[in-house]
């Protein structure tokens, strides 16, 4: 298990991605799957920082924990900003509309969920927990498992 605590500021995103890349490499994920995992975590961390802390006028940390569990790499982002369930936000439906007509909301959440094998959210003991799972040996037909 490895963990990192960073301040809830956009300048921490670099460090978060570097941590995820390192853990993914250690777990044996290939380059593409490492990128996808890093992107997913970055998107949710960005939402936590922007919508959790900054717009709530709060300071706080983000904790990121990596564990290997039964052939999976599991990354958990924990924060104590107000409860924010990403699944309560609508998926972007207008993906084929011209750029100028796009509704941008929810894009980050969409990218996060599409780029990992499993993405779930819990609210436990006053903390938001965003959980990302990448199977070390992909076996299903999901995008996340494609080369």
């Amino acid at each position, binding site marked *: 298990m490895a963990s990192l605590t960073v301040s809830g500021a*956009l300048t921490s995103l670099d460090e978060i991605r570097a941590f995820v890349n390192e853990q993914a490499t250690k777990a044996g994920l290939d380059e593409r799957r490492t990128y996808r995992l890093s992107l997913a975590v970055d998107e949710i961390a960005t939402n936590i920082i922007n919508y959790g802390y900054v717009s709530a006028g709060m300071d706080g940390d983000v904790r990121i924990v990596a564990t290997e569990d039964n052939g999976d790499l599991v990354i958990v982002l924990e924060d104590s900003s107000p409860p924010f369930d990403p699944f309560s936000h609508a998926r972007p439906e207008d993906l084929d509309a011209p750029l100028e007509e796009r509704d941008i909301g929810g894009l980050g959440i969409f990218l996060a969920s599409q780029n990992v094998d499993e993405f779930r959210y819990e609210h436990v003991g006053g903390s938001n927990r965003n959980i990302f799972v990448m199977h070390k040996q992909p076996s299903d037909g999901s995008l996340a498992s494609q080369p």
Partner: protein
Amino acid sequence: MAFTVTSETKDGIAILTLEGELDAAAANDFRAAVEEAADGDPRRMVLIIQALTFMASAGLRVLVFTKQKMGSGVDLYVVGAHDAVLETITMTGFHHSVIMLDEYDAAEIESM
């Protein structure tokens, strides 16, 4: 890796070269460069992203902003996207509104 954007405008074509990692922290720099390039009223805008190693949705949002800023009469080219960056662009449908190229060919772009 830190994000940088450099720009030049030549013959009415604005060329922005993006390098490094385009996350939410870097998006404002990109947006500022777009605004500055747009002030010159270019007839075309080209984004060279061969050295862009990461792009989050914040970067996609600036693409939307760029397209809106330029208006429908100005084409936006995106050149040299890495496979992983290209995947993000296509899975969100953004490839419909920009012209994706593998390489920058000035003569070809000028004649389009």
